[in-house]
């Protein structure tokens, strides 16, 4: 580990902990990123014949020509602080490297479909023979057993599969997903907590164990109240945009400007009176239509019109501050640019500036929100290039230069992808030029001077 040992940022909780990271894509890498941020030495793996697919996703400056697998922002933001080997697990010599690493490791994380690790001969029963107190966590869509265990599972299917999408949507219309894969990071975070729980047990007893994490199950509690309401009242919860049984008014309101919005949530009569006052209409608090939460639920549409007449004349940040200073729950609906400039996220360090090879300085979001007085779970070192730490890790395992050369010759380790298709076909940064996304409203803007605006221009 180049950094992360006790130093200026304090003693990191997991300094010296060794993690073998066989996870790919989103949920697993989000899990191991938290372990790495907490100081663990995470060595991740990918295969030259089958790169982590996120090395193709959302390429820097939409440019797929030059080593596109080193340019994917999607990969970078989830893999900082880690080391990487590019290793062929299809060869015995490759699996042998894994076994040697496991013999001195504390934790193994993997996110293949359930049969894969057993096919490699790297399932928990076998790894336990090599390292009896190993903690192994398998992250999968539907878990390691049960009738759907072998189902192919992508993040965009698992939020619906957990039930959450059945209560996401506009009134009277069909279910909707979040605008990105929401349960993937959630289950990765849960995985990090599960591993820390197992580490606490190992500290006390010396025993390791196996963790079976199903993303579907991990996410079900998020819609828990709907499950309970169905049992207790026999009614299936409806889709109703941002409205809630527990608050009225509650909604997302149009503000001044192009596609700007703010949310407002009122949960008591006092708070409603404060909102009415802040909007210049203290008389609303005396109006019988709005006197109780039940009454406000009943007249929610009328209330929304009155609120929109006020919000639509104001900037979303103005709505936010005016209402919050009056003691009313509210927030601006921020887009992907605004989060980078918001004073709160700036003050709390939500984005670390990482100097990434080929890409220069880039803002990389935190993956653990917990702030400590003694340590900082932040991005420190760049996301690894393909196979960047092959030699370094093999040397630590005692491989000689000759052995390493032989592994390279046999294609067990590599630094370039063995692409099955020409790079020009894979390099699909975005599928179309920016202009077409802008024309169709899929993108709102593309700022040519974004690095100057962010203060990261070279």
């Amino acid at each position, binding site marked *: 580990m180049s950094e992360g040992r006790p130093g200026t940022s304090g003693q990191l909780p997991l300094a010296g902990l060794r993690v073998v990271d066989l996870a790919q894509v989103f949920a697993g890498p989000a899990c191991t990123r938290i372990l790495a941020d907490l100081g663990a030495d995470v060595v991740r793996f990918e295969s030259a014949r089958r790169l982590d697919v996120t090395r193709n996703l959302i390429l820097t400056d939409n440019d797929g020509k030059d080593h596109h697998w080193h340019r994917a922002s999607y990969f970078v933001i989830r893999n900082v602080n880690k080391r990487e080997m590019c290793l062929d697990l299809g060869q015995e010599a490759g699996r042998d490297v894994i076994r040697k690493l496991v013999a001195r490791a504390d934790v193994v994380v993997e996110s293949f479909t359930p049969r894969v690790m057993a096919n490699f001969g790297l399932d928990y029963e076998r790894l336990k023979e090599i390292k009896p107190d190993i903690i192994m966590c398998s992250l999968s869509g539907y878990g390691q057993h049960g009738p759907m265990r072998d189902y192919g599972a992508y993040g965009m299917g698992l939020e619906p599969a957990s039930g959450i999408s059945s209560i996401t949507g506009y009134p009277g219309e069909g279910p909707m997903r*979040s605008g990105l894969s929401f349960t993937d990071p959630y289950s990765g975070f849960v995985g990090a907590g599960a591993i820390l729980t197992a580490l606490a047990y190992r500290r006390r007893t010396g025993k390791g164990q196996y963790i079976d994490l199903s993303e579907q199950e991990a996410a079900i509690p998020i819609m*828990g109240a709907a499950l309970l309401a169905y049992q*207790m009242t026999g009614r299936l919860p409806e889709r109703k945009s941002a409205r809630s049984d527990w608050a009225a008014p509650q909604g997302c309101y*149009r503000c001044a400007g192009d596609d700007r919005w703010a*949310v407002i949530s009122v949960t008591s009569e006092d708070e409603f009176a404060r909102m009415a006052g802040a909007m210049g209409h203290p008389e609303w608090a005396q109006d019988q239509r709005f006197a109780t939460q039940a009454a406000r639920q009943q007249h929610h549409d009328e209330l929304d019109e009155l609120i929109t007449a006020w919000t639509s004349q104001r900037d979303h940040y103005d709505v936010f501050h005016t209402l919050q200073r009056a003691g009313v729950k509210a927030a601006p609906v921020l887009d992907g640019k605004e989060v980078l400039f918001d004073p709160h996220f700036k003050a709390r360090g939500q984005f670390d500036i990482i100097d990434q090879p080929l890409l220069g300085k880039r803002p990389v979001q935190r993956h653990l*929100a917990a702030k400590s007085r*003694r340590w900082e779970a932040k991005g420190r070192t760049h996301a690894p290039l393909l196979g960047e730490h092959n030699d370094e890790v093999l040397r630590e395992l005692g491989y000689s230069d000759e052995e390493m050369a032989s592994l390279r010759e046999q294609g067990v380790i590599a630094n370039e992808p063995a692409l099955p298709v020409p790079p020009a076909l894979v390099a699909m940064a975005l599928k179309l030029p920016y202009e077409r996304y802008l024309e169709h*409203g899929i993108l709102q803007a593309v700022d040519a001077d974004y690095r100057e605006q962010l203060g990261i221009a070279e």
Partner: protein
Amino acid sequence: MPERALEGLRVVDCSQGIAGPYATKLLADNGALVTKVEPPEGDYTRRLGPFPGGTPDPEQSGLFLHLNTSKRSVTLDLATDAGRGVLRRLLADADVFVTGERTSQLQRLGITYEVLAAEFPDLIVAQVTPFGASGPYADYDGNSLTAMAMSSIMYNTGAPDREPLVTGGEPGEYLAGVHLWIGILAALEARARYGGGDHIDVAMCDAAACADEYNAAMYGFQGAVRRRYYSRHIFGYPNDIMKAQDGYVVVIPGANGFKSPLQPPDVISPMALLLENIELDQDVLFQQMGERMIRWQDFEALVEPYFSTHGAREIVETAQALRLPFAFVPTAADLLADEHLQARRFWEKVPAKSGELTVPGQPFKMSETQPQAGLPPRLGEANDEVLSHV
């Protein structure tokens, strides 16, 4: 009872609602002794319900029962000197103190981290708030909705020209709870290694922002700002929920659903096989992702005849057999009846007046120390036991 991972850990939890109580449920179901300190009127989730038959009863709120399994409850009025005195005695024996109060309120109560650290140097003070213990919005109030608004996730959820949609359920609260739980466990690990307590500070909006898949990255790496576009991914279509004959399915072609330009002409794509029409492979909408994304209405028209005449179960099972990672879109009722979840023994039961209540089970399974939901407490049921001890 089999051994559990966190036996011996002692937690005093003054938080209410969802985020803090979910974090301490994850500790309590794993064996920690969690003393839930409630105000005399009880945690406010006791008043939120849902209730059996819709009739309010502080001992029967479904949300409270789910979030407070395996804990004991004492009632204390922290606005009084006596209440705070008892709290201090409890903290003298505790490893972790959890609070959901904003910093300004902790100052009024005289129980800020600084004050507590001076008295209890090994105590871990864990604070979860809408906008953080410090920062420009630290005094502001909020909930799951405000957190999701701040995160950028909401901006991209829903249809263009209509209001952004918030993800269903209470995602911001649960995210904050999970981050608080991780922070507490990390602080305990640091204390075991290096000694000394800590202050863990989780802002609900920070936890939600940590779940952003790529909105901020698209700006930071290419200056592009996504707009809301039917909740679609920027890198692929369809990955959408579509209507089947009797419900909904998630249509996900995955990496190999459509033909690659390098495959020989006689190869038939799994998507064409699923849709029972091999001519579709010749259509530009089956050949070019970019065109498909822009002309999605044409694509929908192309696939509609199949989806509107087949049931969700048949579609998903056929697709999965073709290695297409389609998924179901279950409702609460569907989940409770789901064979897969039952085979995995996912659900847990808690006793309620109306009979047993099925609550979401543990979010992970452990081979040696399986977590398990114990009884949720009646309000103040441990008052005598705890007060006589302190």
